[in-house]
């Protein structure tokens, strides 16, 4: 059943990573954080990358944004649309970020500038990439905030981040990421810091965005539950490698790799396990 129905799609994947390797040089040799990872994200698809700490999932995401620590040594290829990301000049890469490719981090409270009004922060991609004035960008930010269901956005754009709740801050980050209708959104554990009820709302919002805008989302997480709720396709990472990939149904119903099986067995659940058949 592991026929990749998505491979039958026309055209090319939004994101295509091939043989990605990330090394961190140390005094004695190097630490290999990512080891030959290949993955694809197709248009309108939500792809989950799941792994425990140290699995290399975040490093894979940061490689795509070219935002790894400077001492990291990267090889392989990453293509976003037709662009070979690893070959771009720093200036061209900068033009891509926040425009064709946006990032939603884990901790929205820390990710928002405490001394800048929400509206300016949400609208800033338009200032950076479309030469809008901040005034025009803030009025666009009102629409963006409305689209992520922030109430009274006209008033809220004047607020500073500390006036927002955790869930609202994450909505603002998502609005910022959507500003220029990117081809790909990379989300790194965007709901881990949130309470479950708020998390559920944010996950619903992400699905809604995908359905509405047909944006592709690369979703990094350690939480199998979130993957089951949200993703179409899953990559399981362990120690820098992808150990298994498949549709979300296949991974959960018929895991093949021992590590995936162990992960599934370890996950606590509200729905008691059935007796062995």
């Amino acid at each position, binding site marked *: 059943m592991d026929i990749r129905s998505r491979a039958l799609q026309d055209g090319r994947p939004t994101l295509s990573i091939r043989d990605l390797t990330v090394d961190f040089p140390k005094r004695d040799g190097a630490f290999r954080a990512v080891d030959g990872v290949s993955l694809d994200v197709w248009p309108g698809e939500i792809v989950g990358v799941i792994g425990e700490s140290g699995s290399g999932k975040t490093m894979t995401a940061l490689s795509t944004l070219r*935002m790894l620590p400077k001492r990291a040594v990267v090889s392989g290829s990453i293509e976003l649309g037709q662009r070979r990301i690893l070959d771009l000049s720093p200036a061209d890469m*900068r033009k891509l970020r926040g425009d064709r490719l*946006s990032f939603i981090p884990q901790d929205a409270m*820390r990710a928002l500038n405490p001394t800048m009004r929400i509206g300016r922060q949400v609208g800033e991609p338009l200032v*950076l990439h479309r030469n809008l004035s901040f005034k025009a960008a803030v009025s666009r930010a009102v629409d963006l905030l409305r689209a992520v269901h922030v109430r009274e956005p006209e008033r809220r754009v004047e607020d500073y981040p*500390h006036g927002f709740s955790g869930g609202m801050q994450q909505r603002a980050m998502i609005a*910022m990421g959507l500003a220029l209708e990117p081809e790909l959104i990379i989300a790194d554990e965007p709901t881990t810091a949130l309470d479950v009820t708020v998390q559920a709302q944010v996950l619903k919002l992400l699905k809604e965005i995908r359905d509405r805008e047909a944006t592709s989302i690369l979703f990094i997480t350690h939480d199998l539950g979130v993957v089951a709720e949200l993703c179409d396709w899953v990559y399981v990472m362990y120690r820098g490698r992808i150990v298994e990939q498949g549709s979300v149904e296949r991974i959960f119903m018929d895991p093949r790799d021992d590590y995936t099986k162990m992960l599934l067995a370890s996950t606590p659940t509200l729905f008691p396990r059935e007796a062995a058949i």
Partner: protein
Amino acid sequence: MIRLVLTRLAGFVLTLFAASVVLFVTINVLPGSAAKSALGIHATAQAIQRFEAQHGLDRPLLVQYAEWLGRILQGDFGTSFQNGVAVGPELLKRLPVTLELATFAFIIANLIAIPLGAWAARRHQKGADRSITFLATILGAIPNFWLATLLVLVFTLTLRWLPPGGFTPFTANPMMNLKQMIMPALSLGVVSSALLIRIMRASMLEVLSTDYVRTAEAKGASSRTIVFRHSMRNAFIPYLNVAAVEFGFLFGSVVVIEDIFLLPGVGSFVLVGIINRDYPVLLAGALAITLFVLTLNLVVDLIASLLDPRQVKARNA
């Protein structure tokens, strides 16, 4: 907002009051006798008694303090034990000198520290950062009164560009005033900048490593935009507070610098007061310098609060 200012002002007044108590008590438990230094070592016992009675030095400390405070609040700082001159007007004459020196020194220190500190942080662990840190280490090890001496050696004795000292009011001769001010201001400012460079660098490094700077990078902001739009304001908030306190801490050096450059300011007034054990002079001078420092802290603190929306809101709530 108004509440914020009022709270800070109240704190300022309270601190100033407490400082006056500390200074008064410290100075009035001086073991050395004021009478002896005023009247000479060979003064008779009666003469000393008469002197102490005349200046009220034989009464309880609390009474003396209350009276002194009462008079000060009316602008009367008493008369010098040494020469009977009224302290208040003399202090008033000296204040502008020290104010000018302090202002110049603070401006010089910040002009050096802010760009260098920010630049070092931006080039963290690169050549520029190492050079600036090295410079700060060297500057920080130079005693400011030695730097003053070296400046005189070079610019006065060798090059003969600048006068060795003295003071001319700016209104009387602006050029002369600046010529006389530049070496004292440099001695204080350059040495203080060493510490401020480190503070600015640390504040900026802190900000540059935050998640919101990473967000700006992920939005496609250039390194310039990141520094100027997203980092400066946030780095300034801790910088200003720490910088003002540290500058104030180092500002006591006016006592030495004014002595070296024969500046008739508050610092040299304090020194005269100490050498002659002239209580009214010493007290008035020390209080004036403390007032300088507290005012600087107050102003800077208010500016920093204005920069920080979290504080403005918290105080209003």
